[in-house]
Structures are given as structure tokens and as C-alpha cells.
């Protein structure tokens, strides 16, 4: 069997036993890439030579020694392109490593390539990439989800073992659900965002996409911890998330938020998620119904706050210091306007305009400040729910992967794809998505487990127990 099909934990074991060499892993991955990438288009750039060179000198004594990882195209890796799948960053090469990248390097990992994404992480289908669409490995006529669609398609499609993504409103969990892999959005403050191209700084979080929960824990252990360069990172010393979980969920109290099971939702998704809840109950967990009453307001709150923050964060792309510069500008204002208008795609422009509007004089109270207050109410909802339970169990996405082109002309409809993931970013909690079933047409269904803030240990323990009791994670997309 190709090494591209294996998990990080199993490869690390085989590397330690000297059964295989890191170069074998890289070669098998590139064989897969050559066979599958034409259909998938998960990558926007491949490090063919540097990955092989890094494999030759890998230090196997390190926790991720000899392991290649794919990186979403919005994280700076020294010397690699970092385009955020935008024309405005065409030709840009990162002059430094993001902290998350530096930590993976210190742990012995190296980097296979850059994965496709919705431009500046704005989207739920990866169709907003200026570098072409990515296809779902289970059905190439469908979207992989987004915005970390390239990372999810690469891991599920066996052209990467694991990848990093970023999650501002569901951008790790929703594509993980739609492609059938494991996506973890850690608690806000768990992983440094230094070197992640900022979208909405009060919501952005980096996290791993992997085949298994154990692999997710392995990467989180390398990534987590305080960074003086991101002062939102938690000061506590992070735990080792890989302590052998015992596979038991006995005594766990699991809340089902009634607002996440809506009439009219996809019946196969609802059935799979309810069956997962039943599995937890049968194995000794207690299921309680809880309420997050402000859930219906989450989309509006998110698209006010995220666009407001994006309008400020993306002001740096002005054609002066880096990125695309319009030629023959009359003056500096013309330079800004033309560089930005030529460089940004439609969704990015739409969100910058919306964000500028909700912050503008006369409207900031009605939109931005009101949204901040409702965000406070959403957070209170989560605090009250976690007084009654240890974890929340929900669908990750209201439905399986939709078809390419089905929604990209209707932004509001696209925004609604994030309805079950957005609140977690607004509240700052951590959450995981893992496969919990397949539809009759063989599309993956994702289960979301949300924890209290800094409750990753509980999330990973429960997710691991569920995963290992089922074989959803072993299923392979058709080749």
C-alpha cells in the first residue's frame, strides 16, 4: 500500500523502526499527486525538490521528524509563495516563517506545498480562489467546502498526509466535514497567528486537517502555546494532547443544542448525527438537550464583525510594499485604487465594502456595536450550556457537499453554509469535525464536537473514542 494512505502516527512508528525512510513517504505522495492532482487541484504550488531534500536530512528523533505537511496558502513559509489564492499577492514570496510553521519545523516536519483556498479565506466552497477551483475527492462535480478546501481535499484525496488550515467562521471544520477528514479549530488563543495573513483577527485560528483524531492531537501538541508575537495566545503551558486516550466516554455529559437540529435540514445528515449521539449514549455518556438561543443571529453578527475587521486588515494591500502594483498610476491615490481593484476578486471586494459600511459614520452603532453586543449574548449562551454539559454535539454542516457553481452567484445563500460553525468562532471555543457517516450517494457527513474554552483534551478524547469505534475514517474516495 502507498505510504500516502497512512496516518502520521503509523508512519512515525515505521520511521522509528527503520522500516521506511522519509524519502519513501515523499516519493509515494508525489506518485499520488501526479495521479490525482489533475482532477483535484488541491495545491497551488508544490515543493517537489525541497521536500525531497528535507526528507534526506530529516531528524527522526523529533516528534514530527520525517513528516511532510501541506500548508494553506495564507501561512508564511520562508521562501515559498503565499498568495492567499489572490491575484494581489501574485509573485509574493514569504520573507519569514509564521510561528506555526517554525514550530512544525522545530518538531521535525517539512512542507510539501501550498493548498488552494477561497481568496483571503473568504468563502465556503474554494470557488473564490483566483487560481482555479478545487474538486471534492468523493465527487469531482462537487465543491470541497472552504475556505481551507485545498487542505481538506488534499488530505481526503490522499495527496497529503496532513495539512494546516485556518478557521474564521468554519473554514477548517466545514471542508473537513464535506471531504471526510478530521478538522480541528482550537480555542482562540491556543495557536499563534503570527505569520497568518489576517482576515478577521478576533476570530482567526490556525488548526490541523488530518485523517485521524490522534494525528490531529499530534499536530496540536507541536503547534500550541504562547508566542510573544501574538499576545492573544494563552500564557499557560499547553498539555501534551497525545496522552493515550482510554477510548471511554463513560460519564461524559453531551449537550444537543436544539437550534442545531432544524426542520428542513438534510435528513441523511440529521440521521447520521443523531446516530452518533446515540452511540455516545450507549457507551455511557449522558445526552442532555440544551439551548443556544441566539444561534439564529450568528450569521448576521459574523458577517458584520468579520467584514469590519477584514476591511481594516486588507487595507495593507495597497500596491506599495508588496503584491501587485498597477502600472502607470497618475498619483498615489490612483495607485491604491487601481492596484486593489485589479488585484482583489469579487467576494473580497464585496466584503471590504460591507465592512467599510458597517464601520462608517452614522452606521457603526446600528451595525458594528450592536453586533458586538449580540456576540456577547452568544458567548453567554455557550457559558450557560457548558454549565450543563462537557461537550456539545452538532452537525458540522447542514448538508453534504453541494455542486460546483450551485451557490457562487448568491452570496447570502453561501454564507448560510456556515450556520453551525460560526458561533464557535464568535464565542472563541474549540471544536472538531470528524466523519460520522456517508450519504446514499457516498458523500461524507461531518460530526462537530464543541468544547468549553481550552477544552481540547475532552474534545479529542471523545472524538478519538467515536472514531475508533467506527470505520468511517478508513473509507477511501474513489480513485
Amino acid at each position: 500500500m502507498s505510504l500516502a494512505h497512512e496516518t502520521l502516527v503509523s508512519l512515525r512508528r515505521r520511521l522509528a523502526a527503520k522500516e521506511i525512510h522519509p524519502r519513501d513517504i515523499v516519493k509515494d505522495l508525489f506518485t499520488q499527486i501526479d495521479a490525482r492532482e489533475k482532477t483535484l487541484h488541491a495545491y497551488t504550488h508544490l515543493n517537489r525538490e525541497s521536500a525531497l531534500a528535507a526528507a534526506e536530512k530529516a531528524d527522526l528523533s523529533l516528534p514530527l521528524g520525517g513528516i511532510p505537511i501541506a500548508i494553506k496558502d495564507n501561512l508564511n513559509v520562508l521562501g515559498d509563495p503565499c498568495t492567499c489564492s489572490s491575484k494581489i499577492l501574485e509573485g509574493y514570496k514569504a520573507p519569514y516563517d509564521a510561528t506555526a510553521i517554525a514550530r512544525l519545523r522545530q518538531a521535525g516536519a517539512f512542507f510539501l506545498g501550498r493548498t488552494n483556498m477561497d481568496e483571503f479565506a473568504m468563502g465556503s466552497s474554494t470557488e473564490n480562489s483566483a487560481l482555479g477551483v478545487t474538486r471534492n475527492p468523493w465527487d469531482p462535480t462537487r465543491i470541497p467546502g472552504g475556505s481551507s478546501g485545498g487542505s481538506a481535499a488534499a488530505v481526503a484525496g490522499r495527496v497529503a498526509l496532513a495539512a494546516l488550515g485556518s478557521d474564521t467562521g468554519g473554514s477548517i471544520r466545514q471542508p473537513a466535514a464535506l471531504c471526510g477528514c478530521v478538522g480541528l479549530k482550537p480555542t482562540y488563543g491556543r495557536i499563534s497567528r503570527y505569520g497568518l495573513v489576517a482576515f478577521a483577527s478576533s476570530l482567526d485560528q490556525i488548526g490541523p486537517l488530518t485523517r485521524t483524531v490522534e494525528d490531529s492531537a499530534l499536530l496540536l501538541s507541536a503547534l500550541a502555546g504562547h508566542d510573544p508575537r501574538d499576545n492573544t495566545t494563552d500564557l499557560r503551558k499547553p498539555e501534551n494532547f497525545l496522552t493515550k486516550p482510554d477510548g471511554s466516554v463513560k460519564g461524559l455529559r453531551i449537550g444537543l443544542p436544539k437550534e442545531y437540529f432544524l426542520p428542513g435540514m438534510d435528513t441523511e445528515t440529521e440521521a447520521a448525527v443523531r446516530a452518533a449521539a446515540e452511540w455516545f449514549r450507549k457507551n455511557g455518556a449522558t445526552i442532555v438537550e440544551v439551548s443556544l438561543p441566539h444561534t439564529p443571529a450568528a450569521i448576521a453578527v459574523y458577517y458584520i464583525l468579520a467584514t469590519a475587521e477584514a476591511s481594516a486588515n486588507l487595507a495593507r494591500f495597497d500596491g506599495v510594499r508588496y503584491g501587485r502594483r498597477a502600472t502607470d498610476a497618475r498619483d498615489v491615490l490612483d495607485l491604491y485604487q487601481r492596484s486593489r481593484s485589479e488585484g482583489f476578486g469579487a467576494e473580497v471586494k464585496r466584503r471590504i465594502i460591507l465592512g467599510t459600511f458597517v464601520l462608517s459614520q452614522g452606521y457603526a452603532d446600528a451595525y458594528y456595536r450592536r453586533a458586538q453586543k449580540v456576540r456577547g449574548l452568544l458567548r453567554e449562551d455557550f457559558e450557560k450550556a457548558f454549565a450543563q454539559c462537557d461537550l456539545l454535539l452538532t452537525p458540522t454542516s447542514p448538508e453534504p457537499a453541494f455542486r460546483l457553481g450551485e451557490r457562487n452567484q448568491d452570496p447570502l445563500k453561501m454564507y448560510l453554509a456556515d450556520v453551525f460553525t460560526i458561533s464557535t468562532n464568535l464565542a472563541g471555543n474549540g471544536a472538531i469535525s470528524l466523519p460520522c457517516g456517508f450519504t446514499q450517494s457516498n458523500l461524507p457527513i461531518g460530526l462537530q464536537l464543541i468544547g468549553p474554552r481550552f477544552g481540547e483534551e475532552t474534545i479529542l478524547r471523545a472524538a478519538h473514542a467515536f472514531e475508533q469505534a467506527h470505520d468511517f475514517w478508513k473509507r477511501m474516495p474513489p480513485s
Partner: protein
Amino acid sequence: MAAPKLNVSDVAALARLTLTPEETEKFSAQLGQILGHMETLGQIATGHVPEVTPPAQPALRKDVPTPGLSVEAALSNAPAQANDLILVPKIVE
């Protein structure tokens, strides 16, 4: 709160964007619909709720000099440069 009429061209100008007539027309319709959805927030009582502010964290790093990017690295992506400086159009006549 009733959905205000968003003047897309004016707001775009504030954000240093120039839109084509097609973009202006399309964004006006789409953003109107999105703002309509946002009006639902007006129904939530928020009078008693404090605005969420970033959590205070005593995490300011010590003010000691550390090595930064070299001039060469910092300028490596500049579209136009000379003498270790970035070139831009003239801003003062």
C-alpha cells in the same frame, strides 16, 4: 432599524476601490439583500449588554531589541525600489 440605502460607489471609494458599472449594480443588489438579513439583529434586546471588547491579557513582551528582517528581506517583495527604499509615485509637487 430599516435597511438603509447603501451607496456602493461612495463606500467603495472610502475603501480605495474603484468598481465597474457592472460591479456597482451587482454589489448594490447583493449587499442590499445581505443588509436586509442583518436587520434581524434589530429585534434582539441589547440595551443591558456590554459590548464585547478584546480580553485583557498581561502578555506584552519585554521591550528588548531583537533581530528583525534584514533590509534585503523586507524589500524582497517591493514592486519598485532603489537605494534600499521603496519607490512610489510622487505625492508632493
